[in-house]
C-alpha cells in the first residue's frame, strides 16, 4: 500500500475527520490566536445607516432565532441595541419563533447595560410569541396594540404609553429582522415593504445571507448583516468587542481545516481512481 492509500485509509474513517475538527476548534478556543479582522463594506453601510437614524427612533424588532442561531445573532442584536441606545429609542419586540421568548430573555440578561436604561412600557415592550404566518405580519402593520391584547408578561397593552407613538406601520423608522429562516423575510417584504414601504434591516445567519441578498441589492432592505463574521465586524466598529470577535479565531481554524479536507480529498481521489482504473478495480 503506497502513501496515498495509507492516508486515504485513515481519513476515510469519518470519526477521524470529526475528531480533527473538534480538536482544532476546541484547541483554538482555549488558546486564541488574536487574528485581526477586516471590515466589509456592507457592515459599514449598516453601521452608518443606524448612525443616521433620527432621535427617538421607533423600532419594530422580530427576535426570530433559536439557541443555535443565537451564537451569530445575539451579538448583532446587542451591538445594534448599544448603538441605538444613545438616540432614546422606542422598541417593540416580538418573536415569530417558538423559542424566541427564551431568546429575548437571554438577550435581556446578556445586555443589562442596555435594558437597565430603558423603561418597560414606555421605551420598550415585549409582545412575546406570535405565530409564524403571513397574517401575523399583516396584522402587526395594521396595529400592534389592537392585534395583541396582552404582552408576554400578561400586562394589558391597552394603556401602555409606547403604543401611542409606535403602533402602526407608518410609525416605525425601521424594522429589524433577526432571523434564522427566510420566511419572516418573505412575509416582511410582502406585508411591510410592498404594502407600506417600511424600511427593513436584516440581521441573518450566514446560511441564508446569499439567498436574501437580492432584496438588499434591489433596495427593498436598507442593509444586511449576515453571519458571525459580520457580527464581529459590527462589534469592532462600535469598539465593544464581544463573543463574536472572540469566535473569529476558531472560525478561521475550522475554515482552513475544511479547505484542507476539500483539497486533500480531491488530491487523493483522482490519483487513486487512475491507479484503480489501471488495475481494473474499484476506488473507494
Amino acid at each position: 500500500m503506497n502513501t496515498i492509500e495509507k492516508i486515504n485509509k485513515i481519513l476515510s474513517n469519518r470519526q477521524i475527520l470529526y475528531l480533527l475538527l473538534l480538536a482544532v476548534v476546541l484547541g483554538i478556543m482555549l488558546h486564541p490566536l488574536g487574528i485581526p479582522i477586516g471590515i466589509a463594506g456592507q457592515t459599514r453601510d449598516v453601521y452608518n445607516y443606524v448612525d443616521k437614524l433620527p432621535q427617538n427612533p421607533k423600532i419594530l424588532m422580530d427576535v426570530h432565532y433559536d439557541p443555535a442561531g443565537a451564537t451569530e445573532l445575539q451579538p448583532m442584536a446587542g451591538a445594534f441595541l448599544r448603538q441605538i441606545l444613545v438616540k432614546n429609542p422606542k422598541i417593540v419586540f416580538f418573536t415569530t419563533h417558538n423559542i424566541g421568548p427564551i431568546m429575548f430573555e437571554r438577550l435581556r440578561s446578556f445586555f443589562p447595560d442596555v435594558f437597565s436604561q430603558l423603561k418597560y412600557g414606555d421605551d420598550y415592550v415585549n409582545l412575546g410569541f406570535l405565530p409564524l404566518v403571513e397574517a401575523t405580519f399583516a396584522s402587526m402593520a395594521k396595529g400592534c396594540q389592537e392585534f395583541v391584547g396582552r404582552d408576554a408578561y400578561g400586562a394589558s397593552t391597552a394603556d401602555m404609553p409606547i403604543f401611542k407613538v409606535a403602533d402602526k406601520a407608518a410609525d416605525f423608522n425601521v424594522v429589524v429582522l433577526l432571523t434564522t429562516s427566510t420566511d419572516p423575510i418573505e412575509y416582511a417584504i410582502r406585508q411591510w415593504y410592498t404594502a407600506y414601504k417600511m424600511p427593513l434591516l436584516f440581521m441573518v445567519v450566514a446560511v441564508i445571507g446569499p439567498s436574501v441578498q437580492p432584496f438588499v441589492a434591489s433596495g427593498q432592505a436598507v442593509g444586511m448583516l449576515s453571519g458571525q463574521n459580520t457580527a464581529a465586524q459590527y462589534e469592532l466598529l462600535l469598539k465593544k468587542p464581544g463573543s463574536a470577535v472572540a469566535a473569529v479565531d476558531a472560525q478561521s481554524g475550522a475554515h482552513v481545516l475544511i479547505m484542507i479536507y476539500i483539497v486533500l480529498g480531491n488530491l487523493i481521489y483522482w490519483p487513486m481512481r487512475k491507479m484503480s482504473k489501471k488495475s481494473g478495480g474499484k476506488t473507494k
Partner: protein
Amino acid sequence: MFGLWIGAALTVWLFSFAFKDNALYKLAEHLFVGIAAAYNFTIAIDGILKTGIAPIQQGNILRIFALILGCFFFAKYFGKYSWVARFGPAFVIGVGLGISVTTAPEGFVLAQVKSSMLPLWTGDLLQSLTNILMTFIVLGGLTYFMFTFVPGIRGAAKKAPGTRLYDAFLKIGIYGMMIGFGALFASTIVSRVAYLIGRLTDLIASPEASIVATILVIGAIAYAYRHEKKTAVGKLEQKEPRKTP
C-alpha cells in the same frame, strides 16, 4: 448547577450520534422532543390567551370567531366529524394566499425585474462591468429555469443562431449560479461552525460535567458496538448454524 450538568450531558450525548447511535443519544433525543412538545403547547396556550381571550375582554367580541375556527382543528380526533378539521387550515391558507398573492407580484417579481434593469454604461468602468455582469447572470439564470421553450431542433447537424444564443445564456446562467452556490457553501460553513462554537463555549464553561458525560457516552458507544457485533454473529449463526461434532 444541576441544570448546567444536565445541559452539558445532553449536549455531549446528542453530539455522540455523529459517531454512533447509542442508548444515551436516544435518551437525550426523547427528553428533547418531550420538553419541546410541552414548551410549544404552553406558548400556544399563552398566545391564545394573549391574542384570543384578552382582546375579547377588551371589547373586540368578533375575535371569538377565531377561537371557534381554531377549535375546528380538534375535530380530527373525532372520526365521524374529522372532515370539520379541514376548515381550520383552509382558513389560514386562504388568508395567507389572499394577502400574499396580492403583494407577491410587486414585492418579488416587479421589484427584482426593475432592479435588474441596470445602465450598462455609467461612466465608471468597474461599475459598468459589474452592471453588465449582473445583467448577463440574471438573463442566464432565467434562461436556465425556462423549461418549456427551447429554440431550435435538438440533435440537428448545424445549430441555429437561436439555439447558439440559448446555449450561451444557459452556460452563463450555470456559471452565475455556481457563484451563488459557492457563496452559499461558504456561508453554510460559517453558520455551522458558529453553532459548534456556541456549544463548545457552554461545554468549556462546565468542564467537569462535560468530562463525566463524555466518559459515559464512550461507554454507551462501546456497548452499542458490542451489541451490534453480537447481533450480527447471531444472525450469521441463524443462516449457517454452527456444526457440532
